[in-house]
């Protein structure tokens, strides 16, 4: 097998591979920076919770309209935003912390979703909802992925200042502005939006992977915020390409293959990343500076 056959061939020859590539690259571009913010807010598991939370909405859409992109997307959005808002309100109105509130609501939501899916449809359909269909992206799905990705980047850019400040020093933000609460809700909305877009390509359970694994890897590549964003997007895109090719050549399902590729990059980042990678600890610094 030549290098062309291994890397370029699949994309040149097959339309579905090109579509999958565009879709997963668009997803990486939007979801990875969102993941970096989640990680820096110590909300890495919130992405996971939200991914479960959108299931009943997607399932309800599936019940009503079968495997229909608009129905499942709208359903997922409604369920995700409902859980985010409910958890946010409980957090701000009671003594319960955000992680506990999210855990409670996502469990409720997940149970509801599994119940709904089992009411109708075979296990094959359930697998489709859970593991996505990156190799069957139609035009609508691509527009959705590209639109969500663009909207995410524009929103992050516009709200960058309060988002960063809410991470670094929420007390200070609260003392100069009342924007903290609304900005946080908008941010959670972005999380939901990216997960809903991702579940079309990778499935609900794995879409969070393309959000969090690049973010967690990025922490080992830069100590600066801008650097982390760049690294996260790069890791997301590289895993998309590698996962698609790996899946094409070996025949394993594409969604898991992309996440596995991201997982391998994550392990590699932990080991070799220039910002705190483990390997550098094994090399003792022999000289130190005078000041």
């Amino acid at each position, binding site marked *: 097998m030549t290098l062309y056959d291994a890397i370029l061939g699949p994309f040149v020859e097959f339309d579905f591979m090109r579509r999958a590539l565009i879709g997963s690259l668009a997803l990486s571009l939007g979801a990875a920076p969102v993941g970096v913010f989640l990680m820096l807010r110590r909300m890495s598991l919130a992405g996971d919770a939200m991914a479960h939370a959108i299931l009943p909405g997607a399932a309800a859409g599936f019940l009503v309209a079968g495997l229909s992109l608009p129905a499942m997307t709208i359903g997922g959005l409604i369920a995700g935003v409902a859980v985010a808002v409910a958890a946010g309100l409980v957090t701000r109105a009671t003594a319960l912390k955000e992680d506990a509130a999210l855990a409670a609501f996502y469990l409720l939501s997940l149970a509801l979703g599994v119940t709904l899916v089992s009411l109708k449809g075979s296990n094959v359909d359930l697998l489709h909802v859970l593991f996505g269909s990156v190799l069957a992206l139609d035009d609508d799905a691509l527009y959705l992925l590209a639109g969500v990705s663009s909207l995410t980047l524009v929103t992050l850019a516009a709200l960058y200042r309060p988002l960063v400040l809410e*991470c670094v*020093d929420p007390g200070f933000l609260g003392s*100069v*502005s009342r924007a903290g609460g609304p900005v946080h809700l908008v941010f959670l909305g972005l999380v939901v939006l990216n997960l809903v877009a991702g579940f079309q390509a990778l499935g609900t359970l794995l879409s969070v992977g393309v959000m969090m694994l690049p973010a967690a890897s990025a922490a080992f590549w830069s100590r600066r915020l801008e650097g982390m964003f760049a690294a996260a997007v790069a890791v997301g895109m590289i895993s998309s390409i590698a996962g698609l090719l790996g899946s094409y050549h070996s025949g394993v399902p594409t969604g898991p293959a992309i996440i596995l590729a991201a997982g391998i990059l994550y392990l590699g980042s932990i080991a070799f990343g220039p910002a705190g990678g483990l390997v550098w600890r094994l090399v003792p610094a022999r000289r130190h500076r005078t000041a």
Partner: protein
Amino acid sequence: MSAAPAIRLDDVTLGYDRHPAVHHLSGEIAPGALLAVVGPNGAGKSTLLKGLVGTLAPLGGRIDRGALRLRDIAYLPQASALDRSFPIDVFDLVATGLWSRAGLFGGVGRAGRERAAEAIAGVGLAGFEGRPIATLSGGQLQRALFARLALQDAPVILLDEPFAAIDARTVSDLLELIGRWRAERRTVVAVLHDLELVRRSFPETLLLARRKVAWGPTSEALRPERLLEARGMQEAFDDHAPLCATHAA
């Protein structure tokens, strides 16, 4: 700058779960005052600052802030929620003090960056601009937070135990900065434990022990018999305490 309006406390009770932490406090913080708040642990000092800044609503009475807006009160909490591991450098952290000018979306501009650099130099952190805050010592971080306070340019500045675990040289540098704020006719209220420092540097003192023990010139407020009285404060909340009869709801 023009003098800040006075902050008036009218029979204010602040607390948690209906238990008073500050009980029936009345008084006035005059424009340009340099007021120390002193008292034993659990006396309600931090609670009072939260009430003044507005994050805690009074259980009774009222706090009249005059024409002061949210951004006119700069507040340095005691246990800051600051995430020291966040990848942000000293310059950017200090520059967030420009919020009242730049707001959510506005630009900081060249003048803003110069003022931020001046504020950093003013607290003796010149050369630290590019350092991530994770690498700062406790005292250096406190200097950076003071630089941010200075940049906020607020007429009222509230400091909650600003010198806890800070070395003598840093304390004297920061006191100098507080002196400059006073000269600029800003109102400064600081919760402090070091009585010698209060006697030296703060003309006015509120001695608090849940209720007001004394409020006036420092030498008067900190007389030994007053301090003894403050020490006799009942510390624990009593879940079965009767409802306060004199409460002006």
